[in-house]
Structure formats: C-alpha cells, structure tokens
C-alpha cells in the first residue's frame, strides 16, 4: 500500500504524540526524531491542527500535543486527511459494453479494497501505541528468559568443569 510522504509523516507524528499524552513535543524534536524537514512537518501539523487532532503552540515551552480521543481516531481518519481521492469502497466505473472479465477483475480489486478499508478503519492510534508497548514487554520477557537459560547453562558448565 503506497501512501504519500505527508500521510506517512502525519501517521508517525500523531502516533508519537499519542504515546506522549499530555506532553508538548517541539516540532524540532519531531523533525529530528523522524529525519524530516521542519518545513514539511509544519505543513503536516497545520493540517492536523485544522482537523482538530493536534494543537501547536509557538515559543519557549511550546510544541505539539494530541488533543483528540486516540481511542476513536483511526489510521483511516489520518489517511483521509492527506490522500486525495483515496477510498476503499468506491465502485470502479465501467462502460456498458465492457467485457465480463473486467467486471470480475473489478470485483477482485474491490475485495482487496474492502479488506484494506476494514483494517484501516479498525486500527486506532491508541491501539498502535498499546501494541508497541505489548511487543516491548514480550521482547523483554523473551530476552530475560534467554538470559536465565544462558546463566543456567553457564552454571551447569562451571559445575561440570569443577567436577573434572
């Protein structure tokens, strides 16, 4: 699935702000974090602010903050702000005398669109943040278990070496 640059930036920025509830994050920090120009970022933030998803204040102590309900804002909501004529459920126009195979191709493409739309409409920004935290916890648990296993193996080897 291809998204334009502004859409990608918008998704990155909003997810990051949701992961920092109540914090003002400076545009400079956002630009550095994602390796994007402040000029491009400013345009994205303006659009997000117009959509009442974020606030943006200037000056010392200023920055961006997510102000909508992250449990209600979905990836589709963000994408819709930045992609022109993007819709997963728009019927494709066909001429009356089009071959029947065209209709079947259109049906298959609509199937793909329907799955894509269902996915994007069901993933909220909060879900992305929660899943990031879940994976981090699972990763730490797995690392810890691997560390314990290695420690036990070393202890066994030490005992074995001592016995010989």
């Amino acid at each position, binding site marked *: 699935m291809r998204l334009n640059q502004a859409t990608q930036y918008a998704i990155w920025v909003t997810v990051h702000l949701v992961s920092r509830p109540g914090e003002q994050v400076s545009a400079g920090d956002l630009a550095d974090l994602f390796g994007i120009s402040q000029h491009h970022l400013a345009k994205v933030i303006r659009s997000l602010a117009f959509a009442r998803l974020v606030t943006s204040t200037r000056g010392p102590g200023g920055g961006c903050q997510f102000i909508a309900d992250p449990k209600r804002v979905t990836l589709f909501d963000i994408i819709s702000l930045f992609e022109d004529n993007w819709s997963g459920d728009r019927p494709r126009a066909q001429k009356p005398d089009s071959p029947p195979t065209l209709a079947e191709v259109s049906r298959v493409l609509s199937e793909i669109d329907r799955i894509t739309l269902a996915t994007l409409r*069901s993933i*909220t920004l909060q879900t992305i943040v929660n899943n990031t935290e*879940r994976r981090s916890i699972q990763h730490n648990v797995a690392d810890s278990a691997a560390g314990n296993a290695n420690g036990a193996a070393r202890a066994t080897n030490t005992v074995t070496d001592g016995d010989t």
Partner: protein
Amino acid sequence: MAAEQITIEPAKVEDIQSVIDLDEAITGSAKSEYWYNIYNRQSLQSNGIFLVARVDDAVAGYITGNIRTWEFGSPPAGWIHAIGVNDTYRKLGIGTLLFERIKAFFIESDTATIRTMLHIDDHLLMSFFRFQGLSAGPFIELDMTLPSNEMA
C-alpha cells in the same frame, strides 16, 4: 462505576434468556435454540467457557468461546465465538473485563493463541479486538453463495 461493581462469572441457565435478549438487541435476530445449545456445550465441557458480566444482578454482557484443535490445520487455539455488551452499560470496560477473563481461561488451558472471526464491515467490533491486542491472523475466510436446491 467502579470495576469492582461489575462481576464476571460463569453463565447460569437462568441467564440465557437475558443473553438471548441482548443478542437480539445487538444483531436483530433472536436465537433461542442457538444460545441454549451454546450454554449446554460451552458450560459443560472443560474446553469451553460461557461468561456473563453482571451489574446489580442484571446481565450486562456475555462472552463465549472454546478451544478448538486442528480445525483447518490449526494447532490448538482459543476461539471467541461471541461477545456482547448492553448499550446501557457501554464504556464501563465490561468488554475488556470479559475479554481478560476468557484470555485467562485460555492461558490456564495452555492455549497459545486466541482467535475470532467477525464480519468485515463490523469495524467497531474489529477495533475492540485490535485494541485488546489481536491482529490479522494466518487464515482467511472464503465463502460462496450456493444456488437453492430447486435451482441446482
């Protein structure tokens, strides 16, 4: 309302009519025989579970599921077949409480996966399950409309 005022417990036969009514309010379809059969199967077998959420003795929600093994080639997985919460009691976290209890049941049964299936257009329910941590699995559902017996 505090979480401690909501109780999650195994469904009793006297709860089933409330479940039928709640399911009908959600889906538009009253399925009396279906729900009594579900109760008989899930509640009385060790690999099944049927829970209700109570608020002041009223059934505010339900969840049911069981462990299925090697269907469609899948190793044992805990399936959630149905979940419903009364509109009156929405936004109290009842859905999450029900989900966490059934998840605990599957974990206690050494099941490594939770799975469910839902209508592709039910974005709200899909969003709920994704919020709990589920994501698209390795299976895909396919179907085909059959001609009526008279036309076949």
